[in-house]
């Protein structure tokens, strides 16, 4: 975390450096990813099915909207694993695509990179920019601090950060956001309680996030009001079989912009883990009000694959 995000933020205050940095960072990440993939040991499937979760909307291992303390894929302390994901969310007036890759280093550190694209729909027309979308890159790191989601009596604990950088920062700034980039820091606790839900396994997750992101950062960071704040996120799921789960999530969000109020996110999901190479999450989501368009409800579909 120290090695990447801190210098990034410092450099980011110089616009020209920052533009080059975006490409450099992306290239560096890709190179690192591919080289580590190439040298990764053949086996990276040593953990039990579903214990890597899915990939949440910002590219970290988790449920749909909430990052969990689990690390992506199935690598154990002796293994290195990689995953890739694609997610599409379709609500009343907006579409959101998220695409990315992640690597699990010995079930201790997870590095992730994702690109989000918010299709502005009618808002683009209102702005006189039909077909316009807002894009941002999200670079994540998550470190497992302690515990195992199944085997230890205490939950698995992880500390994570998501550095987010808008590629279309002019609009968030015009809307009153203080910044077009920012870093979320979160602490997650996740535990699978074997047989706790009427004989079925129960997964509970709690995440506490420090953030200034408006609508995940797609509408910039901060505003005229409070900047960084603590937000709570929770998930609960029942595994009806080792490969099939259903659950709910709630993600509290800040409300920094004067021009548009922001609501908490929530979803109901089903997840299917046919094997350790593929997982699919289908959800009904309620994203509340986005850019003054209320009742943004709809569907969420996410697929994760790993070699």
């Amino acid at each position: 975390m120290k090695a990447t995000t801190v210098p990034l933020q410092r450099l980011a205050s110089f616009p020209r450096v920052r533009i080059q940095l975006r490409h450099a960072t992306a290239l560096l990440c890709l190179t690192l990813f591919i080289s580590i993939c190439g040298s990764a040991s053949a086996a990276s499937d040593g953990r039990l099915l579903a214990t890597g979760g899915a990939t949440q909307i910002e590219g970290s291992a988790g449920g749909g909207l909430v990052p969990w303390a689990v690390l992506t894929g199935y690598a154990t302390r002796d293994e290195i694993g990689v995953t890739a994901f694609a997610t599409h969310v379709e609500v009343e007036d907006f579409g959101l695509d998220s695409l990315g890759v992640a690597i699990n280093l010995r079930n201790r550190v997870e590095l992730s990179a994702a690109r989000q694209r918010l299709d502005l729909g009618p808002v683009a027309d209102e702005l006189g920019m039909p077909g316009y979308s807002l894009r941002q890159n999200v670079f994540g790191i998550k470190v497992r601090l302690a515990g195992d989601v199944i085997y230890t009596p205490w939950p698995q604990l992880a500390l994570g950060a998501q550095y987010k950088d808008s590629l279309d920062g002019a609009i968030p700034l015009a809307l009153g956001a203080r910044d077009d980039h920012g870093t979320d820091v979160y602490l997650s606790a996740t535990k699978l309680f074997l047989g706790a839900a009427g004989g079925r396994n129960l997964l509970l997750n709690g995440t506490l996030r420090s953030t200034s992101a408006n609508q995940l950062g797609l509408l910039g960071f901060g505003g005229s009001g409070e900047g960084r704040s603590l937000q709570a996120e929770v998930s609960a799921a029942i595994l009806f079989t080792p490969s099939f789960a259903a659950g709910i999530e709630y993600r509290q969000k800040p409300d920094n912009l004067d021009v548009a109020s922001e609501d908490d996110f929530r979803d109901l999901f089903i997840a299917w883990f046919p094997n350790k190479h593929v997982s699919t999450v289908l959800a009904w989501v309620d994203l509340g009000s986005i850019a003054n368009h209320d009742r943004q409800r709809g569907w969420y579909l996410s697929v994760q694959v790993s070699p």
Partner: protein
Amino acid sequence: MTKCATAGRIHVLALTVLLAACATPQSRAPLYDQFGKLEGLNAVVDGLVERIHANAQIAPLFANTDMARFHQLLVEYLCMTIGGPCTYTGEELVEVHTGLDITEAEFNSLVEDLIDVMQERNIPRAAQNELLARLAPTRKDIIYQ
């Protein structure tokens, strides 16, 4: 306000549905009976031993194991774990596994075999999970010893 209330209600409903499963009282037979007593346990361990031999990842770990004795001790251990009328006559788990340096992946591979066998033997899912819950704390005594 109405919107929030409606959304809130939907979530309360969902939560209720999800948690109803937890609260539903189940008139369950004792765990030992759900496994089919000693006969059922013997069948589970038979199946597990077959799978161990067929599992290239963990078969080498049993190269020097007296499988007849392993079979007997595992039945005793599982029987005791699920509240059956048995006494485990083997050594402490740490001692048994010392020197094997069993990895997390190898441990989980055996757990997967066990889950598959229990499913194949039609052990109820809740009983399977209860056994796994009781076995989970032993992992620390088994891996990387």
